[in-house]
């Protein structure tokens, strides 16, 4: 096989040959931004389609199956409908913040998307604080939700937004600490470095065995809470709050919130894949010679975790707000702190499983 080993590097070199350095840099950034925007829209729509089919599968229905083959274009049709819908302007809303909120949400998830490695060298933004950056950026999204809930001047939206605030603040801790557990094992915050370590010594879920598994479970629970999905969907608990924080949004502004939720789910699953399941690495290195196949492995693993999160959603009832906090502060956090020490001891004594 003679496929280019580093895809991004080739494009980069070609651009810089073609034009002068400053222009090439700008063009490169624009290209990347367009690529990610395209990915954002496409992945969002596909995930919505996937969710609807999976929900239908759980609920003894067929789901969308009319528009296009197997209903694949249904979500595109829905997106077109949303684009053409009127953007309702609330009379007594804080107009500036009200309009700003959806952008906060999508900008946050777009930024988080930018550091994800899709395959070897197929990586837009490989900084040395990669995991830290992901964590930091993904918590910006909650500002959008808070703003949206506050600015739309609706009590249901406000309750939803406040719930979102307390939920994100609490569960951020667990996500951070469970990631930290894995960073102990990897010894680096850089994503390419984390994957390189796994390439040498096996996926972290196997390398770190018991503490890594505990960390994975905590990460999935907290990650589901981070993305405000069931059983932690108190933010938009439809039987209690109508639609929660986006009650007053319509058309494309609503679609931004909606897409961002799905992209956030994708991001959480991607972080899980990178940290626990070796990112784009193939199982037992079977396709190591074809780096492009890494994209496939990465997507397969991510979609597997996404499926898990959808499974949660269509099976579990919703928690109550005080139970949500009890779960985090009384159970997940102490377990997590103990788990970090446990992991540190294991790394210190060299008790990891290495191939």
């Amino acid at each position: 096989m003679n496929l280019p080993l580093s895809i991004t590097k080739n494009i980069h070199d070609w651009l810089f040959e073609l034009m002068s350095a400053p222009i090439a840099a700008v063009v490169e950034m624009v290209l990347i931004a367009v690529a990610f925007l395209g990915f954002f829209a496409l992945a969002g729509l596909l995930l919505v389609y996937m969710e609807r089919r999976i929900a239908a599968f759980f609920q003894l229905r067929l789901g969308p199956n009319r528009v296009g083959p197997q209903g694949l274009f249904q979500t595109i049709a829905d997106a077109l409908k949303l684009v053409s819908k009127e953007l309702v302007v609330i009379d007594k809303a804080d107009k500036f913040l009200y309009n700003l909120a959806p952008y906060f949400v999508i900008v946050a998830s777009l930024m988080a998307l930018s550091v994800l490695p899709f395959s070897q060298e197929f990586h837009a933004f490989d900084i040395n604080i990669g995991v830290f950056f992901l964590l930091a950026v993904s918590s910006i999204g909650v500002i959008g939700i808070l703003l949206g809930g506050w600015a739309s001047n609706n009590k249901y939206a406000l309750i939803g937004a406040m719930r979102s605030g307390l939920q994100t603040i609490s569960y951020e801790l667990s996500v951070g600490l469970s990631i930290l557990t894995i960073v102990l094992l990897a010894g680096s915050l850089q994503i390419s470095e984390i994957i390189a370590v796994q390439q040498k010594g096996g996926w972290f879920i196997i390398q770190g065995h018991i503490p890594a598994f505990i960390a994975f479970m905590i990460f999935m629970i907290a990650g589901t809470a981070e993305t405000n999905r069931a059983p932690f969907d108190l933010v938009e608990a439809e039987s209690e709050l109508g639609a929660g924080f986006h009650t007053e949004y319509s058309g494309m502004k609503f679609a931004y919130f909606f897409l961002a939720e799905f992209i956030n789910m994708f991001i959480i699953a991607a972080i899980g894949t990178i940290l626990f399941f070796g990112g784009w690495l193939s199982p037992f290195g079977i396709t190591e010679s074809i780096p492009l196949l890494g994209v496939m492995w990465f997507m397969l693993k991510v979609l597997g975790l996404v499926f898990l999160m959808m499974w949660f959603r269509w099976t579990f009832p919703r928690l109550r707000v005080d139970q949500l906090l009890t779960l985090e502060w009384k159970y997940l956090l102490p377990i997590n702190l103990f788990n970090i020490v446990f992991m540190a001891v294991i790394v210190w004594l060299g008790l990891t499983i290495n191939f």
Partner: protein
Amino acid sequence: MTTTIETNTFKSEEYFINMGPQHPATHGVLRLLLTIDGEIIKNVEPDLGYIHRSIEKMCERDSYQQIVHLTDRMDYLSSHINNEAVCLTVENALGLEIPERVKVIRTILAELTRLASHQLWWGVMGMDVGALTTYFYGFRDRELINDIFEETCGARLTMNYNIPGGLMFDIHPNFVKRTKDFIAHFKTKLPEYDTLLTGNVIFQKRTQGVGILTKEDAISFGTTGPVARASGFSCDIRKHHPYSAYDRVQFNEAISTVGDTFTRYQMRIQEMWESISIIDQLIDNIPDGDFKVATNAVIKLPKGEFYQKVETARGELGVFIVSDGKKSPYRMKFRSPGFSNLSALKKMAVGSKLGDLVAIMATLDIVVPDIDR
């Protein structure tokens, strides 16, 4: 209706929320005026009348045959039992001797109605606490009951199968077989309900110890049905004042003493098992005979007051007819179970969280047209 709340009497932390009349958790056009402190409910005030059709006033100019049809539109999920209530009142007032066949068929259909109603409730209960999938499971099995009804009565929701004096027409030849098939099918599905929802830890945490109603309050608020029985108030009309064929079947009254939301949930699940057992006992023993006795084309009740209560899926439905001997009642009153059950909501919900209110409402199993009439 259309109440406003004087907001300047609130404490500074409290605010007011208008839950309904268009809200997913109120199951129709019920409006709740909530005073909330953060997430904690300080006061609940139901505001009724958004679907009030003044059925009682309409009864005063309708004939008794026509009145039966109005009762479908009250508690539309137990429409067959509502019809039965009016028919029983009229028959008792006239002193009609109803054939055994009619009594047995009415009982089977009433229990099927109860099963259908409880299945819908189960699905909606899950949905209210956030498990959307239960909704489809509940409706899946309810469809089969509706099919049975459609074949026999021609309608799926508003049956109109009972008339004073018996049934409108005889049961469909397939009725016995289909009912048996359904019962066999449903016996395997009911444990599935338990696996999906009852055994779920989150569901149990959400419902246990929430919205407790003591026995004294349950009686004083006039609650009936599963709501009252969860609190230990034995009030099953089928046991205490048997009508139709309930005096010849063996079944247990589902009763407990805890009185929280989870117990109310369990009562209904238990009731479904009892309904299955009642149908099992009767379905093979439908006696031969007429499906109705002849009545006059214009029914005139003797002068007097007549009261009949039946057990609907929600509790005790009372029909009170004051007759002056004419073809229409002088005054007709429906004592609807939902109305009294709703009055206990304030007692149960104050002090709990917003999410609890939704769970409590779900186990009250409110049907708004039944409350508003």
